[in-house]
């Protein structure tokens, strides 16, 4: 059970982390485009 939970947690952290990274990068470019 712990193995499964650990693996699912790893998947969740990486996917959410990548999603946040993508969102932050897009927001930064959007802001820069608005300033220009």
């Amino acid at each position, binding site marked *: *059970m712990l*193995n*499964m939970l*650990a*693996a*699912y947690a*790893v*998947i969740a952290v*990486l*996917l959410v982390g*990548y*999603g946040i990274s*993508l969102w932050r*990068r*897009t927001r*930064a*470019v*959007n802001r*820069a*485009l608005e*300033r*220009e």
Partner: protein
Amino acid sequence: MQTSLAYPYAKENAPAQPTAQPYWKFLGDETARKIYRVLAPLTFLVIAGALYMAVWYAPREATMGDAQRIFYFHVPSAWIGFLAFFVVFVAGVLYLWKGARKWDALALASAEIGVMFTTLVLLTGPIWAKAAWGAFWVWDARLTTTLILWFIYIGYLTLRSTVDDIRKARLAAVLGIVGFLDVPVIYISVTIWRTQHPTLVVNEPGGLEPAMRATLMVALASFTLLYTFLLVARIRLEQKRDALASKLAQEG
């Protein structure tokens, strides 16, 4: 100074693009918003369904117990890694042939997502292996060739993260194409070498039982939707970077 945000082609080597116009026309602001409106809730629902099926619907495997449930997301992660690198391969060929920036952007976007999913494979696999084999890692043919694939595309992203020009984009395309040759090797590795890694038997007698197969299929669908969603978002980021680079170039 916003140069770090702009698409990093050196000015003197800049191709005809970057352009302020989206080169994937259907990924303009309005259509992208429509795509997100459908794709985001659909992806979320199917992932939630896959998670429910993996934990509660699929039966407990007799010998490995709950650790086997890692399989329902480990295999789809590998599938998406392969799919993503196949897209890098095709886009790389088209970029070298046509020279259009849209293929380069597609390859870059897909490579980044492919590396992320291959990382998931390489992290969830050892957790499952520890429960099944008693060791996190063995230098088995499938594990080793998958690790090599990961390194190849980490190299691809490293190349793209340096200050870029069109020659590096071409070199990256070649790397993306050659790197994909490792995918069929990974696929056949369990049949041509003696490995510890199990072979996936889905449709033959003695293979996955129906509830397990259904769970796997839903999980595969969920990650395919997620890949599509992330690809759209990542390509749009690249288009916006190009639009910014174009504006900065116009301002001199």
